[in-house]
């Protein structure tokens, strides 16, 4: 049976989502998408110049129509702004997927979970496929589930920090308790960390900075593609049990069997 991820009624065979900020050249984006095998691409509405003087200035012209466009609400500081950004993006023809990003902290770029829940509630009612970006918190994730989120996207570490899965234990709880796809967004700095997230049972990962700021973004995108597939396969294969310490003998219960051989 094919391993597909279903979000918003769409069947995805790739579990790597790509962000499009921070690239040294917009022209790299199409090759990055191609090599990564990704199907879902997020773009900040704030960066889309719909009436650009030159065609190549409009970032959408670097993203083939076969990809699922997921506009994000980067720049929103509260639910009302995120809702407006999502509506504008849909009106402008960017489809009905949206990644909610509500950030009122410009120092660490941490999301505002409460405003994110509110934006998710309103937009889900309006028929959007809503993927909210949040700090990993079980109660928040439950509420997002209740108000109609299509997935939950917890951060692994602050945006752009490339620090890896610092929130691993919290994410593990979300995977265990939430019936929605859990997609790690932000913090993943290396393919090995993407693989680690997938091995844990995350449904997908979203990567931007680590690819966009790599020496060779296209090669790095391909590496992430492999890592995500490897991690997923490892999860499906069911890793063998890893014991904390070797236990050849039974120091606590061995006494029960002492002398058994000589009897």
């Amino acid at each position, binding site marked *: 049976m094919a391993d597909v991820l279903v979000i918003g009624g769409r069947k995805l065979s790739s579990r790597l989502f790509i962000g499009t900020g921070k*690239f040294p050249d917009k022209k790299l984006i199409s090759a990055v998408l191609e090599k990564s095998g990704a199907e879902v691409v997020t773009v900040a509405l704030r960066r889309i*110049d719909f009436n650009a*003087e030159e065609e190549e200035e409009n970032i959408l012209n670097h993203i083939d129509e076969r990809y699922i466009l997921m506009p994000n609400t980067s720049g929103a500081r509260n639910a*009302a702004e995120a*809702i407006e*950004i999502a509506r504008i993006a849909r009106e402008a023809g960017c489809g009905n997927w949206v990644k909610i990003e509500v950030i*009122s*902290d410009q120092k660490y770029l941490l999301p505002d979970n409460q405003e994110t829940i509110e934006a998710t509630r309103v937009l889900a009612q309006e028929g959007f496929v809503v993927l909210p970006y949040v700090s990993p918190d079980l109660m928040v994730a439950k509420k997002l589930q209740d108000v109609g989120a299509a997935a939950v996207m917890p951060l692994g570490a602050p945006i752009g920090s*490339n620090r890896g899965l610092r929130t691993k234990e919290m994410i593990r709880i979300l995977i265990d308790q939430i019936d929605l796809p859990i997609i790690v967004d932000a913090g993943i700095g290396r393919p090995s960390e993407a693989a680690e997230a997938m091995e844990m049972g995350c449904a997908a990962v979203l990567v931007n900075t680590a690819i966009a*700021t790599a020496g060779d973004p296209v090669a790095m995108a391909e590496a992430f593609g492999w890592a995500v597939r490897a991690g997923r396969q490892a999860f499906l294969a069911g890793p063998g049990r890893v014991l904390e310490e070797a236990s050849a003998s039974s120091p606590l219960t061995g006494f029960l069997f002492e002398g058994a051989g000589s009897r």
Partner: protein
Amino acid sequence: MSFYEVYLQFKDFDFEGFFASVDDKDIEQVLGRDDLDPLDFLTLLAPQAAKHLEAMAQKAHRLTIQHFGKVILLYTPMYLSSYCSNQCIYCSFNAGNHLPRKKLTLDEVVEEARAIAATGLRHILILTGESRRMSPVSYLADCTRVLLEYFSSVSIEVYPLETKEYETLIAAGVDGLTIYQEVYDRKTYDRLHLSGPKKDYRYRLDAPERGCRAGMREVNIGALLGLEPNWRREAFFTGMHAHYLQNKYLETEIAVSLPRLRPVREDSTSYTLLSDLDVVQNLLALRLFLPRCGITISTRERASLRDNLIGLGVTKMSAGTTTEVGGHSQGEHGHGQFEIFDRRGVPEIKAAITRKGYQPVFKNWHPLPRSAG
């Protein structure tokens, strides 16, 4: 609490004594640290740190790419009015100078907007001299509404306003505030600003904070380096001001400009001008102290230096600049606010940024209906 209290705290600090005590080991230690405190920042501003510029540059380069990517946002200033009731001895718009004064009508604003928008730019900074009579808040609001037909972001660089007035302009569609203290040293400030409302040091010093409180998305501060002989001290106060604002107003994007004084012909004062090395040291120290802070370099710097500063921490640059009222659509007549050193148009600057391996970005905000926010 106002930044003034931070200023008072450091006003009598022995900067020279501190600088004299800084040795190479101190600088290396600071370079090995992730989170810098104010004295670490000051260590990097010490004359001794000039010997460590390459190491500072490597780290600044890495941090900037990590937080901003290889991306430079482009914008251009649009001068609306040159009427000014201040007498700042270093500025051409000084009320004491005889200058053909001009204020754009709304039709002329449209002409300017068309000329600029045709170059692809989407972020605009509107400027006026300080004359509440000639360029009142209502005029700025009218201009903003007109400009939003052509641009996705309108910022203001005008005289300091009340919080309520900033709110009025935000409601009209303004999303950014640029206001330079010019000089942090209070005595020097008083000496250079001969008369006019700008003499009120505190009112200007607290203006960025009023902008944050009013809900500006971005607040951009700066000192005009060179006005006060001790630029290192001024650079320190500028960084501390940004640090203060960022910690207190988490939702506002704080940015810093690093304008270097270029004396205007009407001003015969002798200044201690900054060298290119000083400019670079200041930029690097600021980036290491405030890794997420926006940094703007204007066309007061010549093209070759600006190109070399890309990659050291700059995130925003002006392009196709004129400092003259109506200069984009009516030609220039030598009546600008200050002299431009990088006279390149948008296509040339765009090409220069691309050659450096960076992406020139024209649009970084999408205006929302006024009901939001």
